[in-house]
């Protein structure tokens, strides 16, 4: 304890403690607010319409072993007929440099509104899938994925 205190006072004397306390604030200042950018992108897609939950399911691991290759799947409960089908499913990534990861484009001939891929996640974040239906409505699902920092990269 004593050593701790003296270490802290020594750090304080050199101004390191003060420096450390402002550090966490720095990334917020330096990096653009990617979450807000993603939310804006969603609004742009839906034209301000409120997407509904349910119907759409986003499959993503709760914990990704490596952020470079995260398996992702989306599926929407839809009859996929000419009258009623999913036109597009857009996957938004809230902490990556760009807000959209991929947009899947469907037609009634797709048979199912279902697709999978592997994506990159630059850290723990919410991933949001928004489906655009042929009747102009939207549905939404959000999953959080924790990206772990590996033990030894090698």
């Amino acid at each position, binding site marked *: 304890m004593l050593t701790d205190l003296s270490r802290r006072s020594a750090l304080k004397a050199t101004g390191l403690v003060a420096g450390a306390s402002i550090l966490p604030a720095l990334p917020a200042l330096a990096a653009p607010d990617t979450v807000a950018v993603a939310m804006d992108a969603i609004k742009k897609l839906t034209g301000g319409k409120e997407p509904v939950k349910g119907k759409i399911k986003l499959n993503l*691991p709760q914990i*990704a072993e*490596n952020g*470079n290759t995260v398996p992702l799947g989306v599926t929407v409960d839809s009859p996929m007929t000419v009258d009623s089908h999913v036109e597009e499913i857009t996957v938004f990534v809230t902490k990556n440099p760009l807000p959209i990861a991929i947009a899947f484009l469907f037609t009634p001939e797709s048979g199912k509104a279902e697709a999978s891929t592997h994506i990159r996640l*630059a850290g723990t974040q919410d991933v949001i899938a928004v489906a655009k239906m042929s009747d102009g409505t939207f549905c939404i699902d959000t999953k959080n994925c924790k990206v*772990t920092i590996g*033990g030894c990269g090698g």
Partner: protein
Amino acid sequence: MSAGRIKQVLSALGFAAMAFAMVPAAASADDAKPAATEAAYVPKGIPAPAGSVFKTLFSGYQFRSADTRAMQDDDFSNPGMLSVEAATSEWSHVDGEAGKSCASCHADPAKTMHGVGTHYPRWNKVLERPVTLEQQINLCRTNNMKAKPWAFNSENLTNMTTFVRYQSRGLPVAVKVDGPMSVWFDKGKSLYYQRIGQLDMACSNCHEKYYGKHIRADLLSQGQTNDFPTYRLKSQHLVPVEKRFQGCMAKVRAKPYKIFSDNMIALEVYTAWRGNGLPVETPGVRN
């Protein structure tokens, strides 16, 4: 510490390799408990053969997440299969002054290469030393095809090594360490237990004593090589086994052995033997 040095250290810790270096992962208290959802998975091993240092052998596969295991299991999701595909056409590609391809001598790789990938590194009578599968492919190229050898870690050589080993997928690793190999085995064994680098660690410290335990957010494996060349999610390409060894050595801040050096080959021989009996999984998918 200079900026360059800091960069080196960060890169050694794996940060620079992140796809988006701009937004590093935020360290939070939540990161402390990573594998909670995977607690249900119990690694499945096989009984080790007599004389093994382990009671049970575990492929590195057993320590990976369900998603990574699924990626390896599905040939259409396993990115390492792209290399197998690429080498399939390379197999019959004529190269070198002799006007030959691999297929000139080894017609149907599914038959002629079946089992070959299980017993490398293997004793070479002419050279009187063990050769790795990579070296054997290059010996074929220089001696029989009169073609230029491929560079280590080049796409061509790693693809071909993967392709040859893939023909033995599912067969047990069976590296021979008797006869003239015993000298190399002994050398490899002493290197395996030799502490090296600034962190003063031996292979055994992680992969024998602490396998199955966490190193930060990651699970330590037995350091088996039955999946190599293996597709690493981190580097997003196939990695040859000696390259991986170099990575480990750099991580304990030691000077890595040179590729194909006596020390490196001795270590590869010994490490392969520690996995004798495990099925070949090439191309594996690892973190």
